[in-house]
């Protein structure tokens, strides 16, 4: 299905709609700019309706309802206004030093923003478009293959609330493999916000012409760094709860637990002590049969791999009933076995920067467990290595209003700053 100018069309109409797109975009761009107040008002109304359960029939999944209720809170007028003030503060606020001529600076939208959304969260494609709308852009959304039709149904309902936005939202279900269509969408865009894996980002990089602004929201790897404890029992159980709750599937999820040591014996001891804690946390999580099977397969495979070549310096696998810990000799930040199968490695604090720098493009969230007196210094080392969020272990994946996204304010990437003499 395709959504264009407020109407839903069958995918078979794609070519005709793509052919008409440049003309339609030019007409909208030639008209008056989209007033920010209109968008804020529409988002506020949508948030209220979401909270009141107006779209409940669109959201069969309880987990999804949780994500939507968080998204709704973020879309209310107060939250949106706070974000706009934080991310796009007034440009003429500062007084110029003497001798410099003042001139006016204003934010303007990039123009046409193409969102290439990833399928990792059902609400993400819609959320990305909301950010584009807030910054006054016309939004072309290419849906991920995994989209179940939820996004188009949501925008259909949203445009009934705010028909004045209908020329600012286009949604296409074009598969990424349809290169001519992708190239057409890219050719009419001033910026591309791409969400997804390295492969998705690389593909878009190859297609985008020079000068087209690329806004990459790539996948990341989270980790936890442990150097002593304030309350060992509490902090380890919080870390275990985080691993179990996120199933290690998020950018911010803990894949590797680093211990501030050179000694492998400490790593083995940690695994033995932490495994029951992690296993208890994972046992409390209701997994789908598919996820449980994935987790079991990973754990069993890791165990067999370990037994196959014991004379090599292979990692040691500690298997619980529904989780596992793998003690590794190396220190690199890598993806774990997911679903409660975590890696444990050595990383003396003096090596934080040199080791983590090697994977800086994947860095985002670090959970930090340490003695209070060391917190400031270790935080600084982690930030120096390229990490953009240093959290307590339990709240590695929490979302905060006004927080930056991968070290950037998203709205800033979707606008131009224009100078007027």
């Amino acid at each position, binding site marked *: 299905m395709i959504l264009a100018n407020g109407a839903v069309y069958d995918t078979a109409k794609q070519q005709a709609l793509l052919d008409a797109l440049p003309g339609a975009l030019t007409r909208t761009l030639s008209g008056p700019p989209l007033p920010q107040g209109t968008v804020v008002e529409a988002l506020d109304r949508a948030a209220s309706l979401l909270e009141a359960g107006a779209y409940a029939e669109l959201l069969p999944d309880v987990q999804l309802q949780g994500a939507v209720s968080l998204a709704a809170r973020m879309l209310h007028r107060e939250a949106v206004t706070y974000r706009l003030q934080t991310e796009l503060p007034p440009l003429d606020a500062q007084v110029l030093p003497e001798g410099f001529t003042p001139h006016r600076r204003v934010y303007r939208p990039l123009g046409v923003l193409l969102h290439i959304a990833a399928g990792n969260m059902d609400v993400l494609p819609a959320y990305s478009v909301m950010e584009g709308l807030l910054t006054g852009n016309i939004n072309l959304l290419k849906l991920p293959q995994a989209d179940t039709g939820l996004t188009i149904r949501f925008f259909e309902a949203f445009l009934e609330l705010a028909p004045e936005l209908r020329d600012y939202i286009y949604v296409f279900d074009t598969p990424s493999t349809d290169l001519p269509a992708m190239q057409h969408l890219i050719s009419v865009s001033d910026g591309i916000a791409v969400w997804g894996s390295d492969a998705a980002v690389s593909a878009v990089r190859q297609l985008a012409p020079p000068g087209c602004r690329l806004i990459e929201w790539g996948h990341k790897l989270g980790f936890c760094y442990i150097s002593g404890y304030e309350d060992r029992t509490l902090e380890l159980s919080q870390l275990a709860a985080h691993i179990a709750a996120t199933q290690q599937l998020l950018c911010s999820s803990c894949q590797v637990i680093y211990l501030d040591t050179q000694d492998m014996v400490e790593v083995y001891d940690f695994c033995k002590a932490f495994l029951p804690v992690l296993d208890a946390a994972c046992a409390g999580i209701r997994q789908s049969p598919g996820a449980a099977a994935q987790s079991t397969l990973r754990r*069993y495979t890791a165990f067999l791999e370990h*037994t196959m070549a014991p004379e090599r310096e292979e990692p040691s696998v500690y298997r619980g009933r529904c989780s596992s810990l793998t003690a590794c000799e190396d220190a690199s930040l890598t*993806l774990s076995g997911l679903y409660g199968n975590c890696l444990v490695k050595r990383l003396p604090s003096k090596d934080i920067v040199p080791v983590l720098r090697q994977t800086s493009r994947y860095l985002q969230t670090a959970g930090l467990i340490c003695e209070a007196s060391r917190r400031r210094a270790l935080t600084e080392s982690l930030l120096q290595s390229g990490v953009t969020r240093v959290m307590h272990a339990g709240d590695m994946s929490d979302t905060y209003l006004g927080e930056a996204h991968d070290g950037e304010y998203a709205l800033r990437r979707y606008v131009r700053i224009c100078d007027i003499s």
Partner: protein
Amino acid sequence: MSQRTRLFRHTRPYDTDGTRELFVQAVRENVLHHDAHCEGYHRMLAACGFSPRSLQTESDLERLPPLPTLLFKHHRLISRPEHRIVLEATSSGTKGSFSRIAFDLGSLACGTPMVLHTAAHRRLLSPRPVNYIILGYKPHRGNRMAVARTAFGSTFLAPALHRSYALQYRDGGYVPDLEHVLAHLTAYSRLPFPVRFMGFPSYTYFLLRRMEERGVRLMLPKHSKIMLGGGWKEFYTQQVDKPVLYEMIRRLLGVEESHVIEFFGAVEHPILYCDCPYHHFHIPIYSRVLIRDVHTLEALPPGQPGLVNLITPLMTAVPVTSILTDDLGILHEEPCPCGIRSPYLELLGRVGLQDIRTCAAGAAQLLGGEGGLT
């Protein structure tokens, strides 16, 4: 003659009762061979506390540690010297890693009668020449995918007059060309020879949809057959229910449901599973299927869903005697009206594909679920 050869030369592919003891003996012989000739396999069995000599009855099979298909994507386990390997086949993972499975002459020699007996049972062997529509890969030197070889191999079940391929090799890669196939199909339909389709259900469906959009309806000659195999792969979101596909085949090609035959197999378990006229995948005498609990990997009684564990003594070059796939399935023991008495396997789908919701770097590829039952 080895137990394996006796088993694979047995002419009745669903005579489970008559081959029960032979099957267990062939598996025992096969596990002893791998245990003696593959160091990694020996270590795994030892670490799991399993002795091949303890394999005495069919109920012992569930104690034989199954190797996950995932393992073959990262490790090359071999139980034969390199010079005895005559062929390597790969799973069709295109994005990430894939399994490479080696065949020796003995395994190929046993595989051939199996294919012929199974095909004969489903009345697929015919001296009548046919035109083939291959909704899959056109063979190419660089293509080692088992699915391409199976499709090509299937065109020898009846003499081929002509073969038309949907996936053409151009400029170093495969591109779909349904127009080319549709033109051939239209021409074939006017000839007096039967037509046989072989290939991915996804491309078969795409071809039928194109015919429907254009209002093209054909009446294929008598004895035409539609053979499906290879799974939906990256098109899983567009997967349609089997009855929908059968109805389209009847309406647009004039081929009745009883002439639609589906296959599955896996590169790590190269046994030909062919559905019965009621579309049930009965387990042939060459293999056993166990369903394992998704948490504990313990074998489950029939009727319960779990991970699919496939067992066969066919392969002597790679220790794939018992493999654990990343597919979920159910084993049914209810009687089937087709008359075959062996249980049948219902595949519920690949582990994880529908579950994946991840933004951890590299995780989507890791969980991509490539390979497995096709």
